[in-house]
């Protein structure tokens, strides 16, 4: 069906060059690439989850404490809420962008940042609490995996906050250029993705850990 010379070709009709080719769409290309990044980040979390799964048998905690003894699901629930509200605020900000409201976008991002900072603050506080209880990653393989999973997530959130800060500056400085809009879209994907990952962490690490 694809042999090189089947149908006769009319040399006057044939199109050899794309005269009206507009080039690729920058924003959608950027977004596609960012999806790819999200996929690889997903694999990263999947691997950490796998490690956590393998290292969450009771013997993995050696003689040290198991999550049931130190996690505080209600406390972490506040973190969950902070992160969800942050995503929501970011959503408002993106809605404002559709209407072209610079103030709306900025307010949304600031709110999102504050809530994200609350999340991080709570996380740091929680870690300090656990460390003061002697729950440190050096105690056992299980705790190592616990810290790796939760703190890698926290590191992502931290990067997201820096990113938001940069975006605030860029919006103020440049307005809604193609680059800025593209980055805001990517950041939304990033932020939502971290929230989704958090749901898994909350359920499998905190709730499950608390119950078992």
């Amino acid at each position, binding site marked *: *069906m*694809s*042999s*090189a*010379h089947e149908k006769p070709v009319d040399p006057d009709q044939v199109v050899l060059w794309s005269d009206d080719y507009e080039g690729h769409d920058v924003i959608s290309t950027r977004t596609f690439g960012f999806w790819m990044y999200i996929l690889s980040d997903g694999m990263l979390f999947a691997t950490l989850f796998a490690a956590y799964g393998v290292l969450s048998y009771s013997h993995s905690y050696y003689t040290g404490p198991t999550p049931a003894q130190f996690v505080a699901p209600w406390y972490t629930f506040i973190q969950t809420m902070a992160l969800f509200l942050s995503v929501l605020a970011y959503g408002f900000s993106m809605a404002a962008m559709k209407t072209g409201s610079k103030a709306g976008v900025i307010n949304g991002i600031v709110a999102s940042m504050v809530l994200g900072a609350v999340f991080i603050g709570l996380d740091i506080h929680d870690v300090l609490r656990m460390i003061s209880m002697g729950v440190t990653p050096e105690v056992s393989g299980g705790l190592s995996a616990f810290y790796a999973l939760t703190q890698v997530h926290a590191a992502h959130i931290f990067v997201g906050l820096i990113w938001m800060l940069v975006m605030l500056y860029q919006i103020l400085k440049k307005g809604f250029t193609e680059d800025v809009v593209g980055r805001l879209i990517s950041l939304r994907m990033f932020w939502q993705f971290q929230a989704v990952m958090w749901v898994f962490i909350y359920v499998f690490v905190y709730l499950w850990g608390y119950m078992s």
Partner: protein
Amino acid sequence: MLKKAKPGHWRYLALAPLLLLLNGCAKHSAWWIFNPQGVGAKASYDYMMIDVVVMLSIVGITALLIVWFMWKYHKGKNRGSYDGKWEHSNKLEVAFWGIPIAAVAFLSWAVAVHGSFAVNPYNPTVITQHMKPKGDPIDIDVIATDWQWLFIYPQFHNMAVANELVVPAHTPVFFKLTSTAVTTDFFVPQLVGMIDVMPGMRTKDALESSHLGTYQGIAADYCGAGMSWMLFKTHVVSMADFQHWAKGVESSPNTMDYAQFNRFAEPYINVHNKTPVYGHVEKGLFNHLLLEVMNGKKWPLPMFMTENMFHYLKLQAAEHRA
């Protein structure tokens, strides 16, 4: 362009080794894999032959086809007819998928499934199914250190011998294995395949042989500087000889408790091929050790051993002289 000498002719040379692979020079004992002397090793060898015959028939024919096409369709030689449009054939495509599918199906069933059970290190049916009711199997606890082997015979007064393994012929031998420091691999090429030996963990393996002789045992997985020297001779001897030998070892005044084992487990390259025997080692040493390692016990490597061996060699030489 090449002149007369066609690459095609050289190709036959490249195929020669494949033929050699097949008929194997099994008579020389140097070809350990082709000269299995243990029940497990023999089974593996048989499976290998089935696999090679099936695969070689397909791969070999493919290779011949390539060579033939190279000869026939060589441009300018006018041996075959050219058809620049021919790029698809349903029949051929079905064959191309079908042949390997059939071959893989056959190999999966005949070799993968059967073989995995036959030589399953934890319960090799080639040994366990034909276990003689009389003649108790022998248990041996194997402890790998950096870089020595300790073989403990619980049924024989808990005697032990380092860096040398003696087993009676016609008798199943069951191993439990663990390691003090790092992961390695227990391997006697002519008798039994590999099994990992890991710290804080216990693996199992089994061996049976009816061929008296001495076979080389190897630490087959990289475990540090002394790995090449971490060898042990395996002697398959008659039951009578074995009993006799065991008597001798049991009566050795040398014994080993956990404190002594601690010293034994320190990094040591067995360059001088020492094979000390111990008339008795502390009961339960194997499990004790397993527990200790799980509790974090280590026999760390001193820095100088990873950098320059001169220092270590001097120590060794001094010790050897003493």
